[in-house]
């Protein structure tokens, strides 16, 4: 459904250092630096997938989204989405996709949300019946109800974001690009948005590509992760694989009845210790967890045991480290 082949894009960025002298100098000579935003990016996405697109700030995530949504023209490479080359057949192509830029707004600031929706209906030439159907579905699943009659400037960020997402889906697109859709949202709105993305993916078969810095988004949604750093694609696979690669360490926190002698468990290293609580790090490839627990209960009277896998955030940090980005 989506195929990118060797996409590259570089920007010319004007540069100067701080200070008066540099500013005066820049009046006559401007220095430019070429920044490679994307280098030779290739991947394929099948219909119905949810793909998480991650990477540190400035890695090229948004640029890729912009290339795929026909906004930007890459320097080199080819891209075919549903048979279209986005930047060449922009007007015919964009009717098939929906885009949400989490940091921008597509709704008209001073008028009620419904007015913006009706404008979109006319722009996309959505037939009245499917517009009414889509609007009902979106109103219900995103809980828009009374928001539709409210001017956008009076909505909270979470309410507005739900309306933004609805606005991008009114025309029933086959592909949805989400550029940081949960940025700045509270827990309830985040979960509502995630739930909704899952629903439309399952029920309508919408292919979803989302960029985010919130790894719990990825955990909750993405079957597949693409990781980009410095404009290069570094990882393409699923989350479990990634866990397997870095995630054999578990953190074990134990509470026990007061015990004066420090614990000594073979195969586990002690991270911290007090007479009532200890934190251990266990590598499950080296030693079985069952064995560690058994030895623990021999040495102390256990009150509580908590075993945690490494948070996805830390996995990602390690992955970034491995690639030195």
């Amino acid at each position, binding site marked *: 459904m989506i195929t990118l082949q060797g996409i590259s894009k570089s920007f010319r960025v004007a540069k100067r250092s701080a200070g008066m002298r540099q500013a005066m100098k820049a009046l006559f000579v401007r220095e430019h630096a070429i920044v490679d935003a994307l280098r030779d990016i290739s991947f394929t996405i099948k219909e119905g997938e949810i793909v998480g697109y991650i990477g540190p700030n400035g890695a090229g995530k948004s640029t890729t989204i912009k290339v795929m949504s026909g906004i930007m023209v890459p320097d080199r490479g080819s891209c075919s989405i549903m048979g279209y080359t986005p930047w060449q057949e922009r007007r015919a192509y964009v009717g098939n996709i929906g*885009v949400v830029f989490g940091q921008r707004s597509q709704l008209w600031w001073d008028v009620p949300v419904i007015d913006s929706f009706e*404008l979109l209906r006319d722009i996309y030439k959505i037939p009245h019946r499917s517009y009414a159907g889509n609007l009902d579905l979106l109103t219900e699943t995103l809980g828009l109800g009374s928001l539709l009659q409210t001017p956008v400037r009076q909505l909270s960020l979470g309410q507005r974001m739900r309306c933004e997402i609805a606005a991008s889906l009114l025309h029933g697109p086959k592909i949805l690009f989400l550029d940081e859709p949960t940025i700045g949202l509270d827990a309830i709105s985040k979960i509502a948005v995630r739930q909704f993305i899952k629903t439309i993916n399952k029920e309508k078969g919408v292919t979803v590509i989302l960029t985010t810095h919130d790894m719990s988004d990825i955990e909750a949604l993405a079957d597949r992760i693409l990781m980009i750093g410095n404009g290069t694609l570094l990882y393409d696979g699923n989350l479990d694989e990634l866990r397997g690669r870095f995630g054999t360490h578990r953190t074990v926190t134990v509470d026990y009845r007061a015990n004066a002698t420090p614990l000594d468990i073979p195969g586990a290293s002690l991270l911290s210790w007090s007479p009532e609580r200890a934190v251990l790090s266990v590598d499950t490839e080296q030693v079985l967890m069952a064995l560690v627990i058994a030895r623990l209960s021999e040495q102390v009277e256990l009150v509580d045991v908590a075993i945690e896998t490494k948070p996805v955030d830390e996995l990602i940090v390690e992955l970034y480290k491995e690639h030195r980005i």
Partner: protein
Amino acid sequence: MNAYLSVWRLRFINGMQYRAAAYAGMATQLFFGLVFIMIFVAFYQHSTQEQPISLKDVISYTWLQQIFLAFIMLWFRDNEIFQLITGGNIAYELCRPCGIYEFWFSKLLAQRVSSAALRCFPILIVAFLLPRPYRLQLPPSLTAGLLFVVSLLLGLLVVVSISMLIYISVFWTMSPVGSTLLIAVAGEFFAGLVIPVPLMPAWLQQIANALPFRWTADFPFRVYSGQIPQAEALWGILIQLLWLAALVGFGRWSLHRALRQVVVQGG
């Protein structure tokens, strides 16, 4: 509904909200109309020469300028579009299945029409009720009136197509201040908004005739009073159409070029 009509409608509704601005605008425009006319009255009383345009026509000219200010002013601007370009929200405009040029053109048109609709009628009524010589005269014939309406509307389209170029220039300059100021000052002078074009020296009139600005304001206002005869008015309308085609053509071409190399600002 057609997308362009729909955005026109929404922008129009949006524009009709600004009532306080409309009242203030009405007061200002009445005040300026009266002041300008006082100056012209004094000028005509004390001039010994025969002027190329009669006082009565200059007064209509001045009132029409004030009444249709929103149609002809080049400094009239839509900050939303500037922010769209400099702030990067243009990303959303670009993923809509419609032409950006037409889309913005409709928006700008609606903004000017809604602003004029709010203000023109009260000023029009006042200008018709004032005592002579301040009173606005009716056009000499129905044909002159019709030709005026046609040329005024074409002039409006020409103004919007000129201002489109200001917006497009922001893709390169990243700031609307310079291009708005330059085009607004030069454009309004050559449109006859400072001194009516017939009162300019001959060499300046030649420059004004070669530029598009005169066709947006000076021309329709003189058609109104019959100062430009009807046969000449028809030729003028043809010239307006040619300017419109040229400006729209150039605007579309440069917008296309701007979008090829667009950098969405702000990530």
